[in-house]
């Protein structure tokens, strides 16, 4: 009997300690619907996360799982696309916009029960900024080539000093996980932090401030997370989040297989649905008790791009010859006008997509410039432009360049994307109407990337990019002439054209402009230039299509990644009716 009593007291200790801690902890009260604790949720992922280490994670699957295990100082609310307090309770900005002081929540604990304070923040940013660690987050903390300075003012106050005013400063903190210094400092000092927290690390050694903690990892099969009893959010009734007891990520490699698993009830959430699969699932919503959601155009943009890299000269003569066409803006404009974007929206996406004029989709409400018109297909206008650029047609309606050569090129497309293959086929048919012979070449994804980024051995490509955030800052890498992913002309030392020089200036200017209205005006001008010069011929942005079991509470799909489970801590199962 005494033994049983002792066992009961021991078992209840963490809960007693937890309830005592609630009084001392600086908890965040959410505004979502209060839910019911308990239950499990299974989510299918295309592949397993590569690591549990947020410092070296670079793949979406790792981000998805790690964001449940870890927490950041300031977080972007995926539904509102705005920043909100997380581990930082509040913050203030200096008048010159360079100093950013954060007040941390007091009394919080990591998932192993150890306390959290400013030393953990300092340690985390030391790791992220260390060049030897090769963290992908480091780029975010280097402004104009200079590092962000991090200081501890007291145990719960930290100051970040930026080398110059930095407009998206609050958004930088989203996704920068605060690491447990008490666990990782030894690894860091031994120069092994990059190798820490692999899929084989014992679950109890992986610790964070996220809503869940690792329970089990079966490589290649599933990752099981359990609720973190020390999590720092409570609902409007004062109930500690998360509601779910377990969150499981299972590996289901293809979308078709994911659809089948979802239909069978093996997984309760599905995201990234193609419009075709959405249409196939739609009639079964009532009988199988799930609900599909169309969250509207996301941040993905698909485009046709010509190879304008200058390093092909002398190396790839055929591409060099064709670049005379590609570099002429009238040719690009004519191609853009020949493409039936509404046809792509209708046939490839079943009207669940938006035609684009630039890379900013209508889903990006804060930055979308609605005054830039989406090109409407006009073959006469396209022909006029081509004629003005010195092109002509022979009796067979074949387009000939000024030297009498037929205009013919290949369009490379990743074979793994059914939608982009369909887009390429439609573009091919559209271009035939103005006498251009385009060959669609589906090619394995890695090989396509190699040609795009390294060898530059391609003529045109249909591809898509997904912006990680609604803010213009991540576009810097693509739009700036010396950007790492300035895809249409990689390795450009100085702007090759006056409009690229203007783009460079505008992108730098928006980065240091703190006033939203002024910043929006600058970014509108960026969009005007892109729509006019068409370095990429923007085509469509697909809608974010997802689904969930109908009794899943607080399910609010978003258009920013982790579309469906970004608020996993708030998700709960409605009890069956009558209970």
């Amino acid at each position: 009997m005494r033994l049983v009593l002792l066992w009961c007291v021991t078992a209840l200790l963490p809960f007693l300690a937890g309830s005592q801690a609630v009084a001392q902890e600086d908890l965040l009260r959410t505004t979502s619907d209060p839910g019911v604790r308990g239950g499990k949720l299974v989510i299918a992922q295309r592949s397993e996360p590569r690591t549990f280490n947020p410092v070296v994670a670079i793949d979406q699957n790792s981000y998805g799982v790690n964001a449940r295990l870890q927490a950041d100082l300031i977080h972007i609310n995926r539904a509102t696309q705005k920043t909100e307090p997380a581990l930082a309770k509040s913050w203030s900005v200096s008048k010159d916009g360079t100093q950013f002081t954060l007040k941390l929540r007091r009394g919080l604990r990591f998932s192993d029960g150890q306390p959290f304070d400013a030393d953990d923040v300092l340690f985390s940013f030391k790791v992220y900024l260390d060049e030897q660690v090769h963290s992908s987050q480091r780029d975010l903390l280097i402004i104009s080539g200079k590092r962000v300075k991090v200081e501890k003012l007291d145990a719960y106050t930290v100051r970040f000093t930026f080398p110059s005013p930095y407009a998206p400063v609050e958004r930088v903190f989203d996704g920068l996980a605060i690491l447990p210094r008490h666990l990782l400092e030894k690894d860091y000092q031994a120069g092994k932090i990059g190798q820490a927290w692999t899929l084989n690390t014992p679950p109890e050694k992986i610790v964070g401030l996220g809503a869940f903690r690792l329970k089990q990892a079966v490589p290649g099969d599933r990752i099981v997370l359990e609720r973190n009893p020390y999590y720092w959010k409570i609902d409007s009734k004062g109930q500690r989040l998360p509601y779910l007891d377990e969150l499981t990520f299972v590996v289901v490699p293809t979308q078709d297989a994911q659809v089948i698993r979802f239909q069978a009830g093996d997984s309760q959430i599905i995201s990234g649905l193609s419009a075709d699969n959405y249409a196939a699932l739609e009639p079964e919503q009532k009988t199988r008790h799930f609900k599909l959601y169309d969250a509207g155009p996301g941040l993905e943009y698909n485009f046709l791009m010509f190879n304008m890299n200058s390093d092909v000269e002398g190396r790839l003569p055929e591409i060099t010859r064709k670049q005379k066409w590609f570099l002429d803006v009238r040719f690009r404009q004519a191609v853009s006008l020949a493409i039936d974007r509404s046809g792509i929206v209708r046939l490839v996406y079943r009207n669940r997509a938006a035609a684009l004029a630039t890379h900013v989709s209508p889903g990006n409400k804060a930055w979308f410039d609605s005054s830039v018109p989406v090109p409407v297909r006009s073959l006469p206008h396209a022909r006029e432009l081509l004629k003005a650029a010195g092109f002509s047609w022979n009796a067979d309606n074949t387009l000939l360049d000024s030297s009498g050569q037929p205009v013919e090129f290949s369009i490379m497309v990743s074979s793994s994307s059914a939608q982009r293959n369909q887009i390429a086929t439609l573009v091919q048919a559209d271009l035939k109407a103005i006498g251009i012979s385009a060959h669609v070449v589906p090619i394995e994804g890695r090989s396509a990337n190699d040609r795009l980024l390294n060898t530059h051995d391609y003529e045109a490509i249909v591809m898509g990019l997904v912006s990680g955030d609604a803010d213009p800052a991540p576009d810097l890498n693509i739009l700036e002439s010396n950007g790492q992913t300035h895809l249409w002309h990689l390795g450009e030392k100085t702007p090759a054209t006056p409009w690229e020089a203007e783009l460079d200036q505008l992108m730098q200017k928006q980065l240091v402009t703190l006033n939203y209205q002024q910043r929006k005006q600058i970014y509108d001008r960026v969009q005007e230039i892109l729509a006019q010069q068409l370095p990429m011929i923007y085509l469509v942005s697909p809608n974010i299509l997802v689904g969930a079991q109908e009794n899943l509470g607080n399910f609010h799909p978003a258009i920013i990644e982790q579309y469906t489970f970004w608020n996993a801590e708030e998700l709960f199962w409605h009890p069956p009716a009558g209970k």
Partner: protein
Amino acid sequence: MKPLTPAFSGLRSTNSVPRFTWAVWFLLAIHAMVALAGFVAPYSFETQDREHPYARPTRLHFVDCSGKFHFHPFVYVTKAAENDLNDYQQDCAQTAGIEFFPHGDSYTILGMFSSTRHLFGVRAPANLFLMGTDGFGRDQFSRLLYGGQVSLFAGFVAAAFSVIAGLLLGGIAGMYGGTVDDVAMRFAEFFIAVPWFYLLIAVRAFLPLQISPITAFLLVVAVIGLVGWGRPARLVRGVILSARERNFVLAARGFGASNAYLLRRHLMPLTFRVLLTQMAVLIPQFILAEVILSFLGLGIGEPFPSWGNMLAQAQQYHVLVSYWWMLLPGLAPVPVFLAYHSLAETLQERIKSNI
């Protein structure tokens, strides 16, 4: 009348040997339809009707919406619902009768004759999609016929490659024997052992981007054919080995005939029946090889159809569960294979009965 040589005599139809059956007529008919695809098909293989993606096979009517019977078959104009592209509604007020020899998309037959006249069709805005449409609104029936040009042609050309290569190398090996025979046969065994599927994937991957889909396809066909020459070569060698000791060959040699003359005039004609059977066996195998390659995206590219790349669309779950007509290209090779196998069997039996 010129008497038949021993090589061809085996193909004569007599009461004691099996007759060529339906297979020959069927194969002739299907090859003729495919060769004349431009004329038989109501549309071009690349014509997209973007208002009719995944349209069901068009229903031919004899009875109209008001219940009145018509002797002449007709179709209704259909239109997709605004909010549901799978829901095509027929307009009872707009009909179009089936017409013979109407004008339509231009085409060329065998690269020689150009025309715009088709065997049958309907007037716009009505459509005649006998096997429905794909996701681009392209007529599946028309694409199936054009696709047959690729798939059947691939099988035939690749088999011809194999047989010709087999005849040359097997003939030389059988005739000369010794080291020549050893080298040629080890070479043949090597090609038999080569995992052709992986070889084809490798070859396709090495091809540059800039070549046209047709060129890429022909190269792949050439590889299928050249990899497949090993078996015919061994068969030919066997026939030559036994035939070179026969009296009429020895007599010819006694009169001073050279090896080359003996091969050309007396021995190679003896392999004709064996090779014909081999052709009938290899063609369906190679058609299937092309279908598999195209199914996996390694064959001919868009917009050109082949039975394999048409069927590839059915790999997608939504196609599989929603559009049954997209599976029809998978059925097309079945009667062709059966006919070829029946033909091969008949040839085999005729050879046996002749022996």
